[in-house]
């Protein structure tokens, strides 16, 4: 297993470097120049100023040299300097990453738990009213855009009922500590996490339901029934476990992309995560910062893929690690 992991890590690093190089060129293909953006914001754009900014950004150097400097930095774990924000990229990402992880992991846990639970019920009671209700419920959240669910949530739970805060990570100026602070953050977390989680929940519900219905028809389930096992045991130990593999695959893919999906949620709820950092960096053509966020997101996808492969083995002992 160790050799499997080490092999995957080496491959992962190579993939990551390829992503870095690709992104480096991709970003520069987009129209817009960071020096002109900054000069424009300063309300003045004389040639000297734009030239000065280009030199400061290192944008006056030939492209291969810029790439070499950047890749050299990434290899030595230096993600560069955001001249726009006047701070090292790693520091900027470090400040925002915990909030994003809290949001996405909570959303992920909610979506997976509720999704598998609802999917199981729907499959167990296939064709009944409960099945239809769950399917429709899931479909609604799958079909509605995240920003719309977010705005409706704010209207209902913040403006009308005044139950939950509409924005932010914590109550600003309250200076809470310990448990009170944790409760405060949790209150702020509910709406963004549910908004993001419900979308993915819908996918898991449908996937679990479909997969379970398929497994149910297989011969080993008939055998289990013939053995006289109770329905609950059959559902839990035989059907669900076998039906989970596609769900795990999907979850593995989602876990990496959740960070990207968090951009909208973070924007609507003013959640101070890296999704928004990425969005702002994109608008302002803050190349180093944008590349830095991409590197972190790519690394996350690779890590979660590795975890997914390990979880396969737990779910299905028949799967072996090929080294």
């Amino acid at each position, binding site marked *: 297993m160790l050799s499997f992991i080490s092999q995957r890590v080496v491959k992962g690093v190579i993939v990551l470097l390829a992503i870095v190089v690709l992104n480096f060129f991709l970003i520069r293909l987009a129209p817009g120049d960071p020096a002109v953006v900054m000069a424009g914001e300063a309300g003045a754009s004389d040639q000297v100023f734009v030239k000065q900014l280009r030199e400061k950004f290192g944008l006056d150097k030939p492209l291969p040299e810029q790439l070499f400097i950047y890749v050299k930095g990434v290899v030595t774990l230096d993600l560069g300097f955001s001249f726009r924000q006047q701070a090292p990229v790693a520091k900027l990402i470090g400040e925002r990453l915990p909030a994003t992880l809290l949001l996405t992991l909570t959303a992920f846990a909610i979506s997976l738990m509720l999704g598998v639970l609802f999917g199981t019920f729907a499959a167990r009671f296939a064709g009944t009213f409960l099945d239809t209700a769950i399917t429709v419920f899931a479909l609604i959240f799958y079909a509605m855009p995240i920003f719309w669910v977010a705005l409706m949530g704010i209207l209902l739970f913040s403006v009308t009922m005044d139950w939950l805060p509409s*924005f932010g990570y914590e109550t600003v100026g309250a200076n809470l500590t310990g448990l009170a602070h944790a409760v405060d953050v949790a209150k702020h977390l509910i709406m963004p996490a549910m908004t993001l989680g419900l979308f993915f929940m819908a996918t898991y519900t449908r996937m679990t339901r479909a997969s379970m219905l398929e497994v149910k028809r297989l011969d080993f389930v008939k055998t289990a029934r013939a053995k006289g096992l109770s329905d609950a045991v059959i559902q839990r130990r035989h059907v669900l476990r076998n039906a989970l593999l596609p769900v795990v695959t999907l979850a593995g893919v989602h876990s990496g992309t959740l960070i990207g999906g968090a951009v909208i949620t973070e924007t609507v709820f003013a959640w101070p995560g890296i999704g928004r950092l990425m969005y702002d960096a994109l608008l302002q053509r803050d190349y180093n910062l944008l590349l830095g966020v991409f590197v972190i997101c790519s690394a996350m996808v690779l890590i979660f893929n590795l975890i997914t492969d390990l979880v396969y083995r737990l779910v299905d002992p028949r799967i072996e690690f090929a080294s």
Partner: protein
Amino acid sequence: MPKRVLLGLLLACGLAAPVLAQEPKTGGVINAVIQPEPPGLMLAMVQNGPTQMVSGNIFEGLLRYSPKLEPQPELAESWSVSEDAKTYTFKLRKGVTWHDGKPFTAADVLFSIEMLKQTHARARTNLAQVDKVEAPDDYTVVFTLKQPFGPFLGIFEVGSMPMVPKHLYEGTDWKTNPYNNAPVGTGPFMFKEWQKGSFIRLAKNPNYYEKGKPYLDEIYWQIIPDAAARSVAYETGKVDVLPGGSVENFDVPRLTKLKDTCVTGAGWEFFSPLAWLWLNNRQGPLADKRVRQAVMYAIDRDFAKDVIWNGLGKVATGPSASTIKYYTDDVKKYPYDPAKAKALLKEAGYKGEKIRLLPLAYGETWQRWGEAVKQNLMDVGINIETIATDVAGGNQKIGDWDYDIAFTYLYQYGDPALGVGRNYISSNIAKGQVFNNVEGYSNPEIDKLFADGAVATPDSKRKEIYEKAQKILVEDVPVAWMLELQFPTITRCKVKNLITTGIGVNDGFKDAWLDK
């Protein structure tokens, strides 16, 4: 008590009450919205709008300006101008300290000017006429100009020329100086905390030189990236101040109807944002003056003001906003007249060639304005194609002159020499950059008028020159002027004296207080 005395007392109380009610109260916290999150707070290094809004509380300039743009003392308590209008002497306030306790002196002014010449594009342009700056003593600064420069007294507000602490910046690498992230100024509020993506906290400067000020204990600048969420934050009572431009225009009428809500369009007199359409004078149908004039007649600017901007602002008459010096409305008029537009297009021989329109990617309001203008232009037979882009992409297209019509708005900074001429003089045609003369208009007469206007004395001479320039430009229509914008500042009515100068919210909250 005789009735008359009672009546007198009641009257006296009644008259006195408003006066008493206006007595500032000390204490309290204001939550304001800042949008977008500033990239940094070191005003000498970063000059975008949000930075100015937050840092106008931390830093100060030598002067501030009244709504009529008259200079008022700030770090300079008095000033005098020599008879030849080439020497300006500023007397600095004594007893002013930086937030770290060190005294503010003329040495800081000299250092700031040297630094700003390298880091602040607008300050460098403004200081181009300065021959030398000297400090004969700790509290006197003397500027000697190469030649008289009319708008010189107008370049000293905090955003245009912030004072920087010499003892913290001299001999350091400015761009990585740690004080960029924890700025130290002389202003009424001190920087305390910045939770990136959440809020910026400023606290009262207890040693502020104006005794009793500031009145507020703290200001929280809340960072809320979504416009709808900012409206909700105000509605649910989480923020008290929505500075101009914080919410979409279509939310403004709803928010201003809320209980205890006050709204003002004041505080933009110094900046005087003027919106217009860049018209590419170089190529295609728009190279013909008659087509450009047709564009002016074709657009219903009153509709834009009344519907898209909720009645705020004013229809522009030409290159100068009515709030800045030497404005005249004695120019050719372009009322909404589609028939005249059609006639001009016919006369110019316009055959329906495609014209590309770049709206401004600053949110819904600008998007809608783009749609309205497109409709107007298509109504008179102009074949418009809208090009969708983000701000950076749009800037590149405009800078590369790869457009036909493009929305913009620019500040005018109180004087035509500072904020008007730059868009029309031919020496400002430079490919690859925006906000200069990107329309490619070139007229030697206009070049000469703006060159003369900046250095002419006395004032009456400048007036004459700029009035002439306005007349010529309005006839030539190098760009299509739309509106003098007013961004409404929405506050709870308990927030008093928030806007006291022509610089508005960008001038800091030193006069503001809460009527609790």
